[in-house]
């Protein structure tokens, strides 16, 4: 496993509509890091995740996961990643176990039933196994979404706005799980968010995206030493994303 698990060089994405979502994005995430990708809505965070998870092709530039190009070896990339979208959707008419069985099979997981049990146990969700997903709350759905993403023990886990729509208890539970995933499995985590408080509590490094450009990238330790507490981090974030703030005010 290379030390740099996510490598992005001069990545650009312009949609057919003409909207440019990413402009020369260059970024590295090292193995075992929890990386927080911060930015306003529409900054290009989800586009970045879609490209890194092979769901979308870039217009130009290069992106590699664990040394594999997202364009040239998408299946190799997919073997190394797990993905939890912003709004986790699963087969509502199937049980959690049936959902996990399907996604586990597609990922080629061996000893699947045992792995499902282990994963649900890790997520403290064994009681959900035989319940229909359609009856789940947002928080429970998020947990099964996380289960499908880590079932094959990926090297990198992509989380797109994982706390979106969760209540405070759900947010804390998810935060604890992310930290445990990182410490117990050594999973590198790439997390899109616009919640500064979550970044400060969970991440090792942060990147700030503004209108498709990376405008800040440093470790949380360095940021804390330089700027102090969460409030200062918020001030920093707002100061480096002025255009978006002006747009919002308008």
């Amino acid at each position, binding site marked *: 496993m290379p030390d740099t698990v996510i490598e992005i060089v001069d990545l650009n994405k312009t949609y057919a509509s003409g909207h440019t979502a990413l402009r020369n994005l260059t970024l590295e995430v090292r193995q075992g890091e929890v990386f927080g990708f911060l930015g306003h809505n529409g900054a290009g965070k989800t586009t970045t995740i*879609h490209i890194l998870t*092979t769901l979308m092709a870039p217009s130009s530039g290069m992106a590699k996961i664990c040394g594999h190009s997202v364009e040239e070896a998408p299946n190799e990339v997919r*073997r190394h990643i797990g993905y939890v979208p912003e*709004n986790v*959707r*699963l087969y509502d008419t*199937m049980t959690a176990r049936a959902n996990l069985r399907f996604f586990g099979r597609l990922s*080629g997981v061996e000893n699947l039933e045992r792995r499902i049990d282990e994963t649900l146990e890790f997520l403290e969700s064994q009681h959900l196994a035989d319940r229909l997903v359609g009856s789940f709350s947002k928080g429970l759905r998020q947990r099964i979404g996380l289960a499908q993403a880590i079932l094959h023990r990926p090297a990198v886990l992509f989380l797109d706005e994982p706390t979106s729509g969760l209540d405070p208890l759900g947010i804390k539970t998810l935060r604890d799980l992310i930290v445990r995933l990182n410490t117990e499995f050594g999973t590198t985590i790439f997390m899109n968010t616009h919640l500064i408080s979550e970044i400060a509590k969970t991440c090792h490094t942060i990147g700030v995206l503004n209108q498709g450009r990376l405008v800040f990238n440093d470790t949380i330790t360095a940021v804390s030493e330089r700027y102090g507490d969460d409030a200062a981090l918020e001030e920093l974030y707002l100061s480096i994303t002025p255009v978006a703030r002006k747009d919002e005010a308008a």
Partner: protein
Amino acid sequence: MMTTSPSPARIVLRHSLGTVVREQTVAIIAALFVALIFVSAFLGWSATSTVDAIYKSAAVYLTKQGMAVPPNPLLAASPLYLLRNMATYVSLIGSLAGIVIGYQLIASDRKAGVMPLIGTRPVERRAYALGKTAALVSILCGLVAFAALVSVATFFILPGFHLSAHDWVKLFGFYAVSGLYMLVFGLLGLTFGALSRSETVGLLIPITAWLSFTFILPQLTSNINPVASLNPVTALTAPPSSTFFQLTGLLLGPVSLAEAYRTLAAQLLDMLPPGFADRAAISPWATLLMALVLLALAARSALSRMDMTRGDYNG
């Protein structure tokens, strides 16, 4: 521990079969098709038994009167003629069932919103497409096999009908052609289930195509009005000999899919009207196979290029 994926197409196939049967529209249309197969068998049995009973009564009467008894008219016609209604039901409901099943095979995944989760699995898009197509073929094969089984049972139950080896070949040929015809529409449903951004439009376009193939094109090429399209016999009467129909028959005939199927069915079930001449520039076999190949390519392309970032239809 990771291994190379064990036949993802088969995983998609099994999963698709499990999910699509839970779709209410699929269950309803499949049940309707099955019901009509029984109706067709009953109508064939009822009409034949009635004619046979009348003939037997008449024969007894004529014998008593010392008059000559003419041959049983049922024996003069091909026994396969008994299935004439089947061709109508396949053409109408079978093709519609194909569309609904093909469409729901994709829509069930899209409506569930799981496309991004499938798209991030180490599964080639073509394996996904293959699994979905295999599921479509499996379900349609099941429906056609059921219809064939009912037909075979009908022939065994009805007295006085003996199919020659050639008749059996034609009977199974008819079901093979019916399966291919339904598959064409199934692939149409699959294609638009994948291409469309809106759930409604995704179903509306194949249904419009179905209406055009079944009712509009036959009217343009052979002056067969929509009601006549429902009739197994008059649908194949000779078209008017005016220049307009000469031209439309020649030009639109090759794409008049329903007519091609009805002509093939009539050939196989021995119910082609005497002197009937197909005016299309190409044979009905070519029309059917061409449609099948084109739609298989369209479905493969649509499934391979489907937007996997979207969890759902637009609405």
